[in-house]
């Protein structure tokens, strides 16, 4: 990927190495809270675009495989509606440069 190419964050995340376990380490606690949430901040503050609002499904989709484990969502959800745990030992993102 060239530095001056216009790419999506998903394409950028394609450069990152992950070792995924089977289970998500992230979840939305109560989906109805998201429906009422006026800001849906999780969909904009997360630098890995893990959270995506789906109007069709009327809920937040959690792309946990993209998670860079910053923890921004924990504070960024004003309703404390996101459950975040570190992935199991040895799983998750694996930076090669950092």
């Amino acid at each position, binding site marked *: 990927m060239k530095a001056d190419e216009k790419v999506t964050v998903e394409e950028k995340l394609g450069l990152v190495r992950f070792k995924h376990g089977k289970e998500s380490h992230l979840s939305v606690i109560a989906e109805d809270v998201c429906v009422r949430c006026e800001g849906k*901040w999780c969909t904009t*503050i997360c*630098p890995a675009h893990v959270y995506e609002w789906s109007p069709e499904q009327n809920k937040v989709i959690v792309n946990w495989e993209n998670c860079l484990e910053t923890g921004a969502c924990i504070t*960024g959800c004003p309703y404390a509606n996101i459950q975040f745990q570190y992935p199991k030992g040895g799983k998750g993102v694996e930076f090669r440069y*950092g």
Partner: protein
Amino acid sequence: MAEEKFDACVVGAGPAGIAAALTLARGGADVIVLERGSAPGTKNVMGGILYRKMLQDLVPDFWKEAPIERPIAEEQAWLTSGENVVKLGFRSEAFAKEPYNSFSVLRARFDPWFAQQAEKAGAMLINETTVLDVIKEDGQVVGVRTDRKEGDVYADVVIAGDGAISWLSKKAGLQPDRPFPAEHLVVGCKEVIELPREVIEQRFNLKDNAGMSIELFGDVLRGNAGYAFLYTNKESLSLGLGVMLNDLMRTKQKPYELLDVLKAHPAVAPLIKDGEVREYAAKMIPEGGYPALPHLYGPGILVAGDAAMMTNAAHREGSNLAMEAGKLAGRAVLEAKARRDFSAASLARYEKLLEQSFVLKDLRRYRKLPHFIAQSGEMLTVYPAMANMLAERFLTVSGMPKGEEQLAMLKETLRMRPLPRLIGDTWRALRAML
């Protein structure tokens, strides 16, 4: 996991944890380090500047063997406004020579080396182990619970160096068990962009492996308080930014879109042209400062580094504070070990040592700074814009007599920031740092 009991259990193989482990192992203590990544550094990200002094205290002449990138010989600050830039800089031949002042660093390469120093001194490093909780007996922390089978680890003291979220210090009761407020956090993201060594040295006017750091302020951050950075590595550039989380929530801008704005800036784009993006990374930086510090010690536990909010945004410091705090934590535990007393009162020695060092002295001196930055998103745009306006008018020969031009510059300055606010801003900025 292990039947034996350790003198100390360090959680997190970052700068704080490894500095603690190294100090303890050298002092003859039995120390175990638990790291959740498959190797130290795999979870760790920073903009990329490491100061020399604190690491040198731990590993003399480390630059001769450590995987650092380039010693930083030139530092620049760019004040951006639209497509314009006012550039300030400092270049030092002394910074380019031993013992150097600072280095650009890629953490996934540096951290394994640093951890190795602790291992060589006798510390035991266990990777792929996520710590879930502290184990307490009668209020005293006596170990940690990990996600391994039979994964309880017992130790006289636990040192939490578990990074910006620091669940461990929260579970141990050293800080409230709730998310940090958004105005105490910075969200950062960066790209590592590969370029041939000669191209980097040509574009940045560098030689003999010396490096440059550029920090960018103003418009390029689209009204979010924070700054962007461009650091030269050996054969790559670290290009990224960090902005206050409360501003990101207010402006609803996405961190990676801000990074794209940065990459497209006409002063930045030619520097990264033809580069190959190798990695995209992100990290949260705790910048609540002194008012937001947790309790630094409790019965059987200490906390250091990002986990203890030890950063100094004004001076780009973090990893060096972590190393110093880790070292002092190690020292405090060695003293406690000699006394056979791991109570909170005994471990309070750690805070005393921190108070005597620059760590707490600086954090206290800059205690108003985090609040100032959190409230100053607008100022961080207005003043760079003002500098560009003045530079542009000063340098433009328009045919207007100089006397009229100067009057126009003064009027425009006061339009951008009326005099009472100019004075107020200056006063508050000085008070935040002096």
